[in-house]
């Protein structure tokens, strides 16, 4: 069954109103989606989750009168590009996991399984939109044009962010859960003040929806009609805690209480994620305010390389989600439609290997920061105590016989 969410049916704009109709094809072909939704515990009358899906797990296209138009202009070349994004992102992620296992990174939060949610939403954004990620948005960073090796610095321990957020309108990773949803909302309030038609996307996870900051972000976004899309990747697990520990209702339905629409989308369907994100971004751009997208997906790996999912979840669950793999799904669609040939896949394999090698080489050659860098960029306008401690530490370093030249000269390292 392919229908809109309850909230999305609110007739706020033409085309996404109550005209959503099921097609017989959709009803039949998306049976898998229906099954997965039905497996959810019903939490009350009328709260049965509904899922926007355009590609079934088998890679068959299903019609959706409400959202088809948002991907009507997607060409076979675009589909190949989406596929490439997902493959490259997965390859990058796999390399990072390996690097962590080899001791080159201290920690890594893998996005395995969430490629469609991130690429679909990331590719829906425009250059002038602004993205506020959590710490797992490697695929979104890829879509925003951020050099993936920049994402690794904080996990290697050479910085706490390290890229210029304004270069790609992609803010620093935020580790405290949900904090960035307020930054995104404030930024969006600024966009509205500037009369700009760009939009802001705040990424969050299912666990973050329990945070007070997210509730406050929803409140502020609603009250000020901020052009922000809250893109929640419900990957089912907040470290070891399932979504049932976060909410008694499907997460997308939370939006209704704040006065803006919420939609649940198949987070393993890149086309559906693209379509729903475009819908939400268009709402934001045209002054209709915030929306919540819940991308219903699954984190195939551990929360980070530090935890062990076998302690808290069953193998069968993971296996069931493997059947819904976002990359396999799009590949099946590309192949069935004759949109990509073997040469394309082979070239992509080679390209992704090249990326893996580059990532490996860059990480291994990342220099440790100079000790004196501890004192840099704490304040924009300087601070007397920092100056004093910098000078003291430089003198201390210079007191060693083999002191580096910069310590001897007072440690004014730039």
């Amino acid at each position, binding site marked *: 069954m392919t229908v809109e969410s309850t909230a999305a049916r609110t007739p706020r704009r033409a085309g996404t109103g109550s005209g959503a109709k099921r097609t017989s094809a959709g009803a039949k072909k998306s049976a898998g989606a229906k099954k997965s939704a039905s497996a959810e515990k019903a939490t009350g009358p009328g709260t049965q989750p509904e899922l926007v899906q355009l590609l079934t797990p088998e890679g068959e296209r299903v019609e959706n009168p409400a959202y088809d138009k948002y991907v009507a202009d997607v060409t076979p070349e675009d589909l190949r590009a989406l596929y490439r994004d997902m493959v490259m992102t997965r390859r990058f992620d796999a390399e990072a996991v390996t690097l962590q296992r080899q001791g080159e990174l201290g920690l890594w939060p893998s996005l395995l399984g969430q490629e469609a949610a991130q690429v679909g939403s990331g590719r829906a954004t425009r250059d002038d939109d602004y993205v*506020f990620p959590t710490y797992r948005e490697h695929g979104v960073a890829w879509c925003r044009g951020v050099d993936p090796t920049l994402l690794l610095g904080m996990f290697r321990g050479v*910085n*706490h*962010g*390290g*890229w*210029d*957020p*304004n270069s790609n309108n992609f*803010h*620093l990773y*935020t580790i*405290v859960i949900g*904090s960035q*949803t*307020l*930054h*995104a*909302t*404030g*930024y*969006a*309030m*600024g*966009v509205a*003040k*500037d009369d700009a038609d760009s939009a802001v996307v705040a990424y969050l996870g299912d666990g973050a929806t329990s945070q*007070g*900051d997210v509730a*406050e*972000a929803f*409140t*502020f976004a609603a*009250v000020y009609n901020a052009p922000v899309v809250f893109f929640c990747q419900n990957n089912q697990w907040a470290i070891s805690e399932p979504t049932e520990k976060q909410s008694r209702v499907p997460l997308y339905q939370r939006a209704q209480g704040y006065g803006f629409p919420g939609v649940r989308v198949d987070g393993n369907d890149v086309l559906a994620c693209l379509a729903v994100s475009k819908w939400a971004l268009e709402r934001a751009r045209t002054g209709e305010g915030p929306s919540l997208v819940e991308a219903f997906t699954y984190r195939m790996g551990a929360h980070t390389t530090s935890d062990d999912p076998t302690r808290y979840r069953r193998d069968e669950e993971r296996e069931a989600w493997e059947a819904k793999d976002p990359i396999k799904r799009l590949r099946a669609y590309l192949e069935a439609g004759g949109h990509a040939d073997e040469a394309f896949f082979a070239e992509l394999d080679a390209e992704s290997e090249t990326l893996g090698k580059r990532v490996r080489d860059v990480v291994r050659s990342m220099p440790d920061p100079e000790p004196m860098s501890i004192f*840099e*960029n*704490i*304040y*924009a*306008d300087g*601070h*007397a*105590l*920092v100056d004093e401690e910098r000078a003291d530490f430089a003198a201390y370093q210079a007191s060693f016989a083999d002191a580096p030249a910069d310590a001897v000269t007072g440690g004014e390292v730039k």
Partner: protein
Amino acid sequence: MAVKKLPVAKAINESLRTALEADPKVLVMGEDVGKLGGVFRVTDGLQKDFGEDRVIDTPLAESGIVGTAIGLALRGYRPVVEIQFDGFVFPAYDQIVTQLAKMHARSLGKVKVPVVIRIPYGGGIGAVEHHSESPEALFAHVAGLKVVSPSNSSDAYWMLQQAIQSDDPVIYFEPKRRYWEKGEVNTESIPDPLHGASVVREGTDATLVAYGPMVRTCLEAAAAAAEEGKSLEVVDLRSVSPIDFDTVQASVEKTGRLIVVHEAPVFFGSGAEIAARVTERCFYHLEAPVLRVGGFHSPYPPARVEEDYLPGLDRVLDAVDRSLAY
């Protein structure tokens, strides 16, 4: 007319007005700051003149106020947010400490977050709990934040101008018990540096260091001591992070004695930091250990006993006597 006689609250109001006029990117945000003009009327009339888009009544959510101010700052705005009372800042403490303070460093200096957080603080007004606290040490302890507190109308006006112009986050503690005390404000003078201390009364026998609401208390103590033939120097710290230790050191080297006075609990307070540094800097000039006068290690007490908790003239002079007895 460049020189006006204004109460502290009105000086802050004039300062906000000047900043809003000078820079369209300056915003005022907080609970009740618009139509009501703030619970202390500090923002009185600003929304009427600058509109709801620039003087913004917010939902009652402190983390939301600071968190969205961070986002606005990232967009190029300069938000000046009001936390209604000192004890209400804690819901926003996470945003201030984990986000606001660190963002400049995390971006390797690429982004700036020029957010000013105004907090009416301190006791002496007979309020209920959470309305009379002095949490300045909690903020001064956090790298990335600057913490200031004016004690008079002129500083209230100028230090807020400087805080708003700063590219760093500044916590601006307003001594609410002094809101109604008048002082001269010269809006055309050249202000002292934001983080410089100033010697507000010269003396030779001992130094009193204070900031915010306790400066006046110390000046009154110095006047009383003078009647007993004791000459006390009073240093208004003005800035709690950073602290202008050069000015403090010069005074201590002159008098040989130091008493630090603040309303906050003494334990782990800013007085401890000052005592330690002064000991390091002028050990051989000290004639007595550095003494501290402040609040007790207790929650801020009910209003009927707050005068026993707050440092007053007698407790300051008692400390002076103890110092001089060495």
